[in-house]
């Protein structure tokens, strides 16, 4: 395990920000920590980095206790916490050089090269001498990721890494992270953007009001729903053929009960119905998250939220926590 926490709890005064979190991140995964705003993601990341001290519980990173062994652990961790930050009066290059010089280790001789390398990696290789103050949001984000990569970390802890990037930038960042991950770096990113986690991560943790409500491989979450989506130019014939199994129809698209798309296809083709699209419906991550989490902390309701669905959430294989 790269990260293992047990009963991790943080209270700020009377507010419990993180409540008994047992997070386990295996080596080599791309882990996505999802949750609405205020669910305790950032506080958890800060505790992993030793910035915030836990009220109770324990943290191990690389098998060493944090924050006691921070001096051993942190040199191998690259982090982006709640957005990038830099000394605004200096250039990006100067920022990275100073940041590199601030920590122990990292020989002076190859500092220049290392800084150029990471700037190249994040697509800032040709950046000029203007101060960071004049950078765009996207450039700052790239610089923040460059800073996280500076010492060739074993673990990348990234909080909202694609903030402020344009779609092309997001794509670049995604392939950079995948590349690094394939080279052996464990990537943990926290985000409230489902699409981002869905597109990048192999494992997902979901936090809600301080608790970790799910920790599962992404594939295990996306179970078939027992419905098949069918697109056909002959919806009327299909309706007739599949009498009773069609749950709904919108234009040429039908939702059919059942979980074997191959069987359905064979049946339709045999019945002379042309099929232009067919597939088992899988649950989206969005559905999973909405089922598991309450309203975000930024929503303030006048009345208490309606009671939970009496049928309860759909059981999730692999999510038994």
């Amino acid at each position, binding site marked *: 395990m790269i990260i293992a926490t047990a009963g991790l709890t943080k209270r*700020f005064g009377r507010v419990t920000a993180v409540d008994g979190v047992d997070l386990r991140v295996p080596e080599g995964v791309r882990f996505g920590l999802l949750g609405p705003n205020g669910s305790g993601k950032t506080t958890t990341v*800060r505790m992993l*980095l*030793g*910035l*915030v*001290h836990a009220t109770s519980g324990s943290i191990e990173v690389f098998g060493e206790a944090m924050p006691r062994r*921070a*001096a051993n652990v*942190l*040199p191998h*961790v690259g*982090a982006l*916490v*709640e*957005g*990038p*930050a*830099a*000394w*605004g*009066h*200096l250039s990006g290059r*100067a920022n990275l050089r*100073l*940041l590199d*010089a*601030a*920590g122990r280790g990292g020989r002076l001789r190859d500092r220049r090269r290392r800084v150029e390398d990471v700037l190249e990696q994040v697509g800032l290789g040709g950046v000029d001498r203007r101060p960071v103050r004049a950078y765009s949001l996207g450039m700052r984000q790239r610089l923040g990721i460059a*800073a996280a990569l500076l010492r060739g970390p074993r673990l990348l802890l990234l909080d909202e890494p694609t903030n402020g990037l344009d779609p092309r930038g997001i794509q670049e960042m995604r392939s950079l992270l995948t590349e690094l991950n394939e080279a052996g770096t464990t990537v943990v990113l926290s985000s409230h953007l489902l699409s981002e986690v869905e597109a990048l991560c192999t494992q997902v943790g979901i936090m809600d009001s301080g608790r970790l409500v799910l920790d599962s491989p992404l594939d295990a979450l996306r179970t078939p729903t027992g419905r098949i989506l069918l697109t056909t130019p002959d919806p009327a014939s299909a309706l007739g053929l599949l009498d009773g199994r069609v749950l709904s129809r919108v234009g040429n698209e039908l939702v059919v009960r059942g979980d074997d798309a191959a069987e359905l296809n064979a049946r339709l083709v045999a019945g002379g119905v042309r099929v232009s699209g067919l597939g088992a419906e899988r649950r989206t991550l969005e559905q999973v998250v909405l089922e598991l989490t309450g309203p975000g902390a930024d929503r303030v309701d006048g009345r208490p939220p309606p009671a939970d669905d009496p049928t309860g959430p759909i059981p999730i294989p692999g999510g038994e926590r």
Partner: protein
Amino acid sequence: MIGVELRLMLRRRRVWLCWILLCALPTLVAILLAATRLTPPPGSGGAFLSAVVTNGQIFPAAALALVLPVFLPITVAIVSGEAIAGEATAGTLRYLLVRPVGRLRLLTAKLISVAVYVLLAVLLVTVVSYVVGVLAFGFGPDASLGGGGGIPSLSGATLTPVDVVVRTGVTVGYLALCMLALGAIGLFFSTLTDSPLAATLGVLAVVVASAALTPLDAASAIQPYLPTTHWLAWIDLYRDPILWDSVHRGLLVEGGYVVVAFGAAWANFATKDVTS
């Protein structure tokens, strides 16, 4: 980290602005005095100011007395209040800590950079005002009479140039320590809050409160422990023979402030949750 901190400080425009303003005030006073020859009557006005017109070499002492009560503390409050809170506001604090830079190491580097700032500030004021003083008022009557170019002490006896250099050196060191004590308090305040402005105002509140208590007889019991009480002790270095008593006391008290304030900063910062 110390090197990084110094490089960061020296590349801040605000720091240079502080230094320039500190040197500008004495220069302005010198120009006005030279132009009008209207010195304040003896006993009123700033220390040494009435003697400056006759001998430009006293001007560094007068300049230090000019910037000491308000100007210098304000700039020290700004620079030291910024130390941790400024990094917190900019967000760079969390990146330094996960670099990782040990918290004690970070505080030490900050204290050293404040020390370098105050030392350079006092030194710059001294050097600039010496040049300005000599340009505006000359070397004093002694030089024209073929004397050694010394300056008169408060006690009347003339100090030789070597004497002047030694005493000025001790003065610079002493004032730097006084200001460093303030800087250490600022560093402590800076760990209490994420707002540099709040830390700066806190330091100024300490200065104002201390200055308000100093002349009060009812506060005589705590006066020896107030930081501002000792700020003028360096004037005793210009007496002949030198009166070390108050300078010694000042060194102990101001040194004590540095130790206690830095200790408090460490105690608070070592386990502080960095949430900025």
